[in-house]
Structures are given as C-alpha cells and as structure tokens.
C-alpha cells in the first residue's frame, strides 16, 4: 500500500521553505519564477515521493525546481539570457551542486537566506514593500496576514508584493547589498506579529 507523501512534503516545505526560496531567488534573479518553480517541485514531490522519500528532500526539491524554472523560461520563450545564465553561469553551480550535497547544502542555503533578506530590503524598493516582502519570503506570512498588520486591503498588499518582485527581476536588484535601512523594522514586526498596532510605533533607527 502506498503511503501518502503529503505530510512529509508539507513538513519539508514548512521547515525549509525560506532556505529553498532563497537559493532559487539567488539562482534565478526572479522572485515570482522562484516561487512558481518551488510550487511545481512540491507538486511533483506529492506525485513521486510515495513510499520512497529522497535521502535529501531539500536537494531533490531544489533540483526539480531549477529544472521546472528552466522549462518555464523555455516555454515562455523569454529571458533567453537568464536561461544561459542558469546553464552556464557561476550562479547555476550553487543549485546544480545541491544534488551532490547532503546537510552541507543546507548550510550553504543558510547563507542565501540572508542574501534573500538583503534582496527584499533593497533600498530601491519602497519601505513598506521591503517589510512586506521579507515577511512573506523569509517569515512565510501570507499576503492576508501582512495586509492585516499594515491595515490595508489584501488586494492592495498583493499588488505591492507583485510590483516589488517584478522590480527585483527587471531592475537587476542583486542580493549583495550593504545598506539596509529596513532590517530593524522587520525584526520589530516579526516580534509583534500579533499586535499589529505596534507597527506604528516609531521604529528604532536602523
């Protein structure tokens, strides 16, 4: 009898989502593509894992997500440069080598989670978008939860997130930023997830 892989997939996703997303955003330079690819990989895991869960589920998901991203790029017939970047560029190595790595891959990805915060907090993004994006990408909050914290409609917030993600892709915002005026504020929000009004207290100067 085949055991449903759903609980395992869910657990791996819940525990490692931010790390996997960070690795993918870094490799692809495209937030939305990274999210879609990760979803594709999870969907495939639900179909494939059955009795046999891979030794390194994170590496499995990352490899599948990367391949899905290439497929999506190919299908869209856009981003020809990005495709080449993935196939040859130095960034591609960080993902392709994941297959060979066990626990080590997670340590590598750990660094990329920080780079994801830098990307989300890039000063070229509007401050509220920075905070919202970090809460979604790193802390895993939903657009609805973030919208309630900011006291704005969910649609408005979702649009802001999409705009920010597209700017990251289209303006070539890299993840190696030193100036990060948003980070103190994000820590502040995460500590106070359940008390939305604290957002409007003056945030400590970063």
């Amino acid at each position, binding site marked *: 009898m085949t055991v449903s892989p759903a609980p395992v997939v869910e657990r791996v996703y819940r525990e490692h989502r931010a790390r996997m997303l960070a690795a993918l955003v870094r490799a692809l330079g495209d937030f939305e593509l990274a999210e879609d690819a990760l979803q594709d990989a999870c969907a495939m895991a639900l179909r494939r894992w059955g009795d046999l869960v891979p030794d390194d589920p994170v590496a499995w998901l990352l490899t599948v997500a990367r391949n899905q991203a290439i497929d999506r790029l190919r299908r869209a*017939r*856009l981003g*020809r*440069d990005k495709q080449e970047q993935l196939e040859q560029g130095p960034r591609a190595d960080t993902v392709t080598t994941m297959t060979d790595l066990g626990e080590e891959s997670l340590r590598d990805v750990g660094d990329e989670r920080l780079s994801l915060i830098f990307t989300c907090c*890039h000063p*070229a993004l509007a401050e509220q978008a920075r905070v919202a994006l970090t809460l979604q990408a790193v802390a895993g909050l939903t657009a609805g939860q973030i919208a309630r914290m900011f006291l704005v409609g969910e649609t408005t917030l979702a649009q802001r997130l999409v705009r920010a993600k597209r700017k990251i892709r*289209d*303006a*070539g*915002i*890299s993840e*190696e*930023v030193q100036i990060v005026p948003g980070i103190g504020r994000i820590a502040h929000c995460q500590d106070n997830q359940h008390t939305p009004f604290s957002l409007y207290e003056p945030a400590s100067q970063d």
Partner: protein
Amino acid sequence: MQYMLLIYNCERPGPADQGFAEALAAVNAFADECRRRGALVGGAPLQPESTATTLSVRDGRTLITDGPFVETHEHLGGYYVLDCPSLDEALELAALCPMAAVGSIEVRPLAGVPGLDHRPVDLATTGE
C-alpha cells in the same frame, strides 16, 4: 544589464561661467570612471526644455507643439547609458556622478524586447 541615468534639476554652467572648467573636469572624471569599469555606453547633455518640440501622429495627421511633453518642475538635463552587472553597481556609479550632488538622478533599466533592432547606423551598414 543597461541602465539609463536621467539627470534632473541640475543647472549646467556655460563655458563662460565661473566654475565651468572645474565642472567639466568633474564630469569628465566621472565618465573616465565609468569607462574604467567598462560601463559607459553613451550619454549626452540636453539643450534646455525651451528648445523642445513635441510631436504626435493621430489618424495620419502630425501634430507638433512647442515645448516639452509634460510641463513639470522636473527638468531633464541629460542622460547616460551604463552597462552594469546589477542595479547596485548602477546606483554606485550614479552616486559618483557630479550632478547627483546638485540635482537628482533617476536610474532606469533599459528594456529588452526580442527582435528589436536598434543598431546605430555605422553598425547596421557594416552588417554586424
């Protein structure tokens, strides 16, 4: 990726004005730095907006009006096109531009459009 630096609200001294030589040297030094990094694609100062003419074609009729497209307090005075690996590098160079200390610089990525042929005339005629 290529970025356009749009230079706003920056008075440009004329050759007879005081400080012209210093301003010229600073701008040339900026261009040197851009070239040193392999980033400088092009750029030019623009004549003032009083010289602008705006044109549109509707239903086959060409409409020409005197003046810039939008009357604002923001005056576009010139531009650079820089080839940079990331927005951060473009922003770093924009911060080195002497005009940033006087006016403001808008940094915009150039869009890639598949199939678009914008080769300048010298490249197009040699078939490169």
